């Protein structure tokens, strides 16, 4: 399973969706979740850079897991997700910071069709508040943006969650330039 995580970890960094040291990826396997380790580099994941956690109860292995493990666990428990990706992509982060609303509506055709709308949620790194807000948002959305932090997405496989992160970033990038040009025009 670490190979799948490694493949999309590399892609996330190569695509500029996150820098090497930021972001995290996990997969649910039965009542376990396999997640990238704290301090690991997303584009250099090997079998030692992931850790298996119990889905139902935190344990000692949580201490070496990504600090967002609490958020991943909560999403798995409250949604049908089997894979989660989280990035610190710049356009999504910027859009979440300038938006005064808690929903971002994509303007481009593809994103409107694929995402409909993107919730903007709040909560500190690795906090219970963020865990709850993320789980609530992903009950009926493919992905969300943590305000000032970055997008988080779910899927049945890692690739699906990766595609959603790409879509969110694309939607935010297009919206950013469209808004900029519209402002200039006005």
């Amino acid at each position, binding site marked *: 399973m670490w190979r799948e995580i490694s493949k999309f970890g590399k892609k996330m960094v190569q695509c500029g969706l996150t820098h090497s040291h930021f972001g995290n990826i996990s997969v649910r396997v039965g009542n376990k979740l396999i997640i990238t380790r704290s301090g690991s580099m997303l584009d250099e994941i090997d079998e030692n*850079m992931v850790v298996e956690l119990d889905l139902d109860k935190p344990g000692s292995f949580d201490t*070496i897991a990504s600090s967002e493990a609490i958020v991943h666990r909560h999403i798995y428990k409250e949604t049908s997700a089997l894979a989660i990706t989280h990035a610190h992509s710049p356009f999504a982060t910027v859009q979440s910071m300038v938006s005064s609303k808690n929903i971002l509506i994509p303007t481009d055709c593809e994103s409107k069709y694929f995402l409909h709308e993107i919730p903007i949620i709040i909560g500190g790194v690795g906090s219970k508040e963020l865990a709850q807000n993320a789980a609530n948002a992903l009950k009926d959305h493919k992905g969300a943006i943590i305000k000032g932090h970055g997008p988080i997405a779910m899927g049945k496989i890692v690739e699906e969650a990766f595609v959603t992160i790409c879509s969110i970033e694309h939607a935010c990038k297009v919206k950013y330039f469209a808004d900029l040009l519209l402002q200039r025009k006005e």
Partner: protein
Amino acid sequence: MFGWNGKIAKVYLTEKKTETVSLDEEFLTNYLGGRGLGVKFVYDLVKPGIDPLSSENILAFAAGPLTGTSCPTSGRYATVSKSPLTGSIFDSNSGGNFGPELKFAGFDGLVVLGKAEEPVYIEIHNGKISIKDARHLWGKNTREVNRELSKFGRVACIGKAGEKGVRFANIMNDYTHTCGRGGLGAVMGSKNLKAIVVKGNKKISISDRERYKKYFQDITRLLVASPVSSKGLSEYGTAVLVNLTNYMRILPTGNFRFSRFDFAEEISGEKINSVFPIKKTPCYACPIACKREVRNTEIEVPEYETISMFGSSCRISNIQTIMRANRLCNEYGIDTITTGSTIACYAELKGEELTDEKLLELVELIGERKGIGQELCEGSMRFARANKNPDISMQVKGLELPGYDPRGVLGLALGYATSNRGGCHLRAYMIGPEIFGKPKLVNRLTFSGKSGLVQVIQNLFTAVDSLVVCKFALFSVGEEEWANILSAVTGIEFVSESLLEIGERIWNIERLFNLTEKFSNKDDTLPERFFQEDGGVEGRNIKKDEFRASLLEYYRFRGWDREGIPTKEKLAQLNIQL
């Protein structure tokens, strides 16, 4: 003066005299407090070659500039002396409330010299120092002494083992907090000093309260954000490590012959939490609260090191037995790592599978210094040598290795080998970067890049031991935050680099002390087992050429010559007078 009290108490037991000595700001700025102050006193006052258990040795107690403030994890103090176990300079620090109370009583430290004719204890009450009769306390163990003296203040004391000169006897404060490892309790016993009681109501003055408040909040925020300090240690104590180290194949098993214990789950933090109702018993000003006991009892939950030594290393899978062994050690005042490791060495030598009953019996015999305990109380190095099998003692410079197999954490292997006090994980806790990924995850199975990292972390930890704050806070809080809050408290501007330089100065003084005690680069090594055997993981034995290259690189980073001797230029740079 802000932060510090600017004075120490000196007690001459032979002459039954006490004295208050002022310390100037420049001296304190160079050595800070805790380990730094103690090391400087021992370096200046202890003559080379003396017997650590003679009246010529001294015993220093020192708090730091942050001790007694509300700064997170600052409730610590250090003890320093020449160790009867290793013969090296030896510092040991402890939490609880004794350190802050020493500051409230008006002193930054206490230096004990000479030897009392009869058992005594020292009482310090709001600046007044007294030597008192302790004949009624002699022969009693630590809990009883604590109970008897705590009505007068916070207590640091020894048990029977310290009186009887067990080479790894501890000083115990506030009942269960320990200045452990190097036998400073035996030094205390050799001076006929049973206890120290401190009490006071002096407030620690802070130079800039607004700045202090800001940095206090920064540190608190970082501690809360880190899963290691706010979840792992807080939830499971240090026992959180058992399952982790077992999974990573670094849990010492059967005296380090193996690195995985089949029954690790039975002695893990998770198991303890599931069996016992736990009550947290935090040290002064500590939000992490890793110290725990069983609710409605006075039974302390053992630390990871204790569990790994009495558990996996002695192949005991009953957590209740480990808790009893831990309790006995605390009662007698003996170090759990050295006790467990020496018993594991004994079991290997005798080819014996230890039963729960046998383990407890051996602990008791060591504490009482009776039967086979008379041999074991010398520590594993002397025991194995006396039995003509020195290679089965798992020690460096005479100090038994703690609960991490160095074959699976090579930065820590270098840290063990170069530690000034011997086989210790706390001089450079490489488990942070190599296991927890704090501050940054590094590859644990290579020496590459480790020599530079180890010496920087050693310098940082030495400074932290001199502030004195808890090393566990270093999972989340870096030198910059410590420098900031130290500046706010003292009114003297410290930056990260100055803290590291202070650490480096103290480290080099320790090295100089050891060199005069005939230690050399030949002692900067590991037990042969780690080079010859793989511990059950194919190919994991440490390659001698890689180890040697890393050691030489370490000397070069330190500004030492190829023999590991500090150069004149380095000493001049650190302002150390020979």
